[in-house]
């Protein structure tokens, strides 16, 4: 009642928990109601006597504490006697822009997975790579049409300067391209294989952690499952060429030296009824896909079966990531949709259970969230890029608002792709490519 008037003298019982490597002994603290994040963070630091100050953020019932404790209680109607369970997480520092890489065309896909290199794919059909000093290291004209997605295929066999990239394009094919970067000379690239299945533009491509298999999704409702082995001969026959095609082909061949081998899929996954917008690998031989038919589907890729379907109501999905302690376990899925939400689904429920899996949270955006990227492994954070040019950093536990946000470029240029790895977030979109430093302040 009088918490606002006599807040100075009131203390609230609080239990502090954490999943960070800085745990406090579990006990109840009496904390003055006037305390804010800063005081709480100091308390944790002092109690642990950390050598270097680590800033913390505090989550009270899924909401980041932005006011004093007393005000929060007054707003949310928590009583004074009630023990508040506060979870603390390491603060996300305000994002800082590191560098930008202007592109002539829109950047549709970025990858920051390789340390020291950024790969971008653009609507002009070119895959480019940059190093941290903003120097372009390679430029591969991979496709004749716009590239929609790239994925780095991890491989152990090749040298550290050679990367294998898989790219999906509007020209109905996906390519596996080998790019060799050499420090001083001009880098070389070679198309290893072309993947032929789809009859509509491809929307995404993903490779598994070991780099043995690929998944492609397309607007024609199909998902292709491929291996990355390069066949000796074409698995798919060349189509009967018309004059026009032949001409085009010749031109392509001239540009891209030798076309790769034509590969056929191992498995075709059919169940979606509309455009498949994203497919990713889940844990052990499962795939998770989402599409414009408002479904998220889990697949057994070996058998090509849909094992689980989550159907939302009129939510055409645009992007999907898995998030959790172990990304490969694919327990929880975040999917962004055109109704300006990112929805969190729990996929653990097996299909034999009667209970449907639940959407546990929904993150509201002010514009269409076009792309998602999960944070560092083990964290609960992810970033989303939206059509209003704002990249938001979220914590899964805090559904009420973004932890941090920043605006890439000036004006409202659409963000089409984000990737978050190694403390940097690569943002690709209408204005080119930018790299921002986002992440937990760590004392590594």
């Amino acid at each position, binding site marked *: 009642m009088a918490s606002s008037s006599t807040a100075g003298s009131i203390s609230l019982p609080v239990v502090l928990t954490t999943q960070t490597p800085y745990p406090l002994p579990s006990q109840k603290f009496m904390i003055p109601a006037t305390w804010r994040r800063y005081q709480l963070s100091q308390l944790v630091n002092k109690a642990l006597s950390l050598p270097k100050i680590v800033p913390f953020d505090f989550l009270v019932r899924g909401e980041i504490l932005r006011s004093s404790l007393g005000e929060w209680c007054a707003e949310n109607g928590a009583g004074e006697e009630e023990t508040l369970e506060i979870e603390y997480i390491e603060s996300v520092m305000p994002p800082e822009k590191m560098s930008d890489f202007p592109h002539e065309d*829109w950047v549709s896909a970025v990858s920051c997975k390789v340390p020291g290199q950024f790969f971008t794919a653009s*609507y002009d059909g070119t895959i480019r790579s940059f190093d941290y000093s903003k120097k372009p290291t390679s430029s591969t004209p991979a496709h004749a*049409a*716009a590239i929609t997605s790239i994925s780095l295929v991890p491989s152990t066999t090749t040298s550290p300067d050679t990367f294998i990239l898989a790219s999906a394009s509007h*020209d*109905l094919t996906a390519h596996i391209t080998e790019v060799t970067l050499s420090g001083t000379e001009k880098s070389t690239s070679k198309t290893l294989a072309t993947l032929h299945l789809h*009859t*509509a*533009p491809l929307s995404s491509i993903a490779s598994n952690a070991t780099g043995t298999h690929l998944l492609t999704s397309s*607007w*024609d*409702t199909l998902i292709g499952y491929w291996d990355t082995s390069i066949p000796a001969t074409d698995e798919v026959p060349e*189509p009967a060429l*018309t*004059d*026009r095609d032949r001409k085009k082909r010749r031109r392509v061949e001239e540009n891209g030296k030798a076309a790769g081998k034509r590969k056929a899929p191992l498995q075709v996954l*059919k*169940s979606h*009824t*509309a*455009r498949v917008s994203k497919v990713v690998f889940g844990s052990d031989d499962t795939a998770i896909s989402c599409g*414009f*038919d408002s479904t*998220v589907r889990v697949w057994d890729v070996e*058998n*090509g*079966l*849909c094992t*689980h*379907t*989550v*159907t*939302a*109501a*009129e939510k*055409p999905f*645009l992007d999907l990531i898995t998030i959790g302690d172990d990304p490969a376990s694919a327990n929880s899925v975040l999917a962004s*949709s*055109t*109704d*300006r*939400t990112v*929805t969190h689904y729990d996929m653990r429920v097996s*299909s*034999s259970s*009667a*209970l*449907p899996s*639940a*959407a*546990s*949270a*929904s993150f*509201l955006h002010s*514009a*269409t969230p076009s792309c998602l990227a999960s944070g560092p492994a083990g964290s609960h954070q992810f970033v989303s890029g939206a*059509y209003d040019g704002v990249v938001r950093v979220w914590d899964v536990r805090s*559904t009420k608002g973004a932890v941090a946000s920043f605006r890439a470029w000036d004006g409202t240029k*659409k963000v*089409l792709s984000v990737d978050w790895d190694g403390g940097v977030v690569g943002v690709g979109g209408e204005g080119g490519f930018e790299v921002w430093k986002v992440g937990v302040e760590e004392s590594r």
Partner: protein
Amino acid sequence: MAVKHFAKTSNKRKQPFEDDAPPAPSLHVENLEMLSDEENDEDAASDDGHVDEFPEIDTRSDSDEEEDEDDSDDEEEEGENEAEDGSESDNSSLHVFPKAKTIVSDITGQPKRVYPEIEPDYDSDSSTEDAPNRVGNVPMHWYDDLPHVGYNIDGKKVLRPARGDELDKFLQTVEDPSSWTSAFDKTSQMDKPLTTEELDIIQRLYAGEVPDASYDPYEPMTEWFTGKGKEEIMPLSAAPEPKRRWVPSKWEKQKVMKIVRAIRQGRIIGSKPKTTSKFPVYSIWSEPSSSHPPPLPAPKPRLPTNSESYNPPEEYLPTEEERKEWEAQDVEDRERDYLPQKYSALRLVPAYDRFIKERFSRQLDLYLAPRIQRVKLNIDPSTLIPKLPSPSSLKPFPNYKSLTFTQPKGRARCISVSPDGAWVISGDEGGRVSLWEVNVGREVKSWDFGSKIGALEWCPRADVSYFVVTIEEAIHFLIPPNVPSSVFSLTEALLAPASLPPAPTTPSPVKWVSPPSSARSIDTPILTATLPPSSGLPTQVTWHRRGDYLATVSTGGTQGGVWIHQITRRHSQAPFKKVKGAVQMVLFHPLKPHFFVATQQYVRLYNLSEQKLLKTLTPGIKWISSMDVHPSGDHLIVGGYDRKLCWFDLELSDKPYKIMRYHTRAIRSLHFHPSYPLFASSSDDGAIQIFHARVYNDLMTDPLIVPLKILRGHEIRDGLGVLQVKWCSRQPWLVSGGADGTIAVCQNHSFDLWVNNSSDAYAILIHGEMIIFDPDIRGCTRKRSRSQKKTIMPSSPVQKQHGCIRETPGFNVNRKEGIAGTRSEPASLSVSSVAGSLKIVDVPVRSGLRVIHGKYNAGNFDVPITQRAGTPVDPPLN
């Protein structure tokens, strides 16, 4: 006795008068004697009996017939006449006029009346009787101081007569016996004896009789024309008396005989003798009850409640505010007519204060006194608003602008969305056509034509992929890039076949040209149809649903141009020789071979196969700008430059079912969503309005039209706002092109979702239908609601959570979801919601997909409407 005496005195008095006026023969002694009726009655009768003869006797005697009767009559009459005459003479005795004398005539021997001769001198008239004083009728006191009292006729003064004193007067009364019958004459200033007539008048007045002695109130009736002996003997006409006068009537006899016969046969029974008493006696109370229903019993008075107790519990007592409010209210408005009051004991309760008032009003009631009842109009303004379902229950509909695409070269005149809803082509006035993705807004390909784009439209066929663009009397056919080779070859074979179809028998002025295959490229049209010169820019292109026929409307040309082109035959024809008015727009009926033609004020519906006019719709719009037909084909919306939007039910009437005027400026474009019950209208006011338009299959229910959303964001340039709107076919997404060169894509927002806390059931609303998913029953039920949310809430407690916080997917009907590995199980079902109807996807193993659109209907699926086995569900664009 007194009368006698009076008469005598009067006689005496009259003497001097008679002397003065010698020729007054009326004043005979014998006449005077007749004054007394009693005495002279007999005499008079006997005297005058013979005198009075009625002349009728003579006339009677003249008649030939019945003389004897006449005679007897005569005698009787004479008797009567005698009596009459007696009375007559009686009355005439007082006549001032000269009395007639009856003498026996020498000639006839009969007695006759003889009147005295009147001498025509001054004295003959009584009015000119001498009055010595001719002073006139002036007040005599004027002469009070003068020795005379006036002047005589000769102008000599009439001297005032000497008047004695009171003693003389007294002596006079003693001495002169006539003094008491004299009166003072003002004119002569002396006493004048009263005349006999005057005395008689006085006497009669005194006796209370009629003053005029000559008036007889009891005059016997004179029978002039009736009575015995006075019958009309002479017939009025000389015609012989008709026979019917004496022959008994045969007709009457027949009538009478009929009655007689009836009486004999007993058919007529004589009525009973009526009761003799004047007033029939009857009992008022023993009447049989009437047929009316018995009067309603009066309602029982309400039993008193606790609050009416003299010692109610405390909670019934009004607070001070309640008491004030009650007192402030009018008596009629009070909810109850008393205030609860508390008394500790019954003996403390005062007398009933409104006793008198109630008695009074009761009296008024009994008296049926009208009491004025105040009529108060309490209308809640919200009840006047028509009941419409709330827009949030009619989701999905586009409600936010997700992205914009900018046309660099001016107004985005025309846009078209590909049949699969993934691509948009847009054309501007600078001649640039752009192909871009709906969802990203990235231009993939552009074509430059260098002049204003009139219209462009995708071909609705799924197996081929191309679109048409009209520029300057030419229709260009273009193939988008990145189409699959199979589709590409099919399209190419369709548009530029190796062997051209045979030329039509009737040559058409439209030239179809496709460049040779060597010169073909993706940047140039594969086929061009050139309209005859000076036919104007085709501003509208519309496809038949099968994608073989194409209609174009050219405006601004010299000849009004509606052309229908057939792609496969490369043939164009103008279906109308002459069209009244400028054609604004044409449309193919989605199902029938009908063709809508909108001129400036009318919409005409033609049957193309029979080639005749079916209907003329009159929207009442001054200038039609746009129209669109509902996918069912039964409804048409027409928009006009005068801001009106008319909805036609084509089966109902030629007049609009509904006219809406929501835009503030001219309507530019209308479009029905192909699958969702939505339509959009765009206007020069820069706004797009989204409507929910649900059409029911039963003819009894009217279409439900609910305004949902106004989307703004386009700038108004040069008075032009949003020039065209188009829906994406599979999603509730809207693409709109504005005069500011931007094209916006508007998408829908998330749903409201209700989650049941106790079970895992949840529900969503899609287009006013609530779909409840319950994993326990492994299915879903849907309830239709057109009104409030709460009416469709599931019976179990359901808590609404805002903004999709919890979402429980549960559309899975069949748990054998996902092609469960067995080929013996032929199919697995998954149910998703598409466009408000359930879509059952039947998935046979590895044989493509089969889609069955159906409706979930009372536990049974009504299947199948369309079945397409073996083909992919969504025929891809490329």
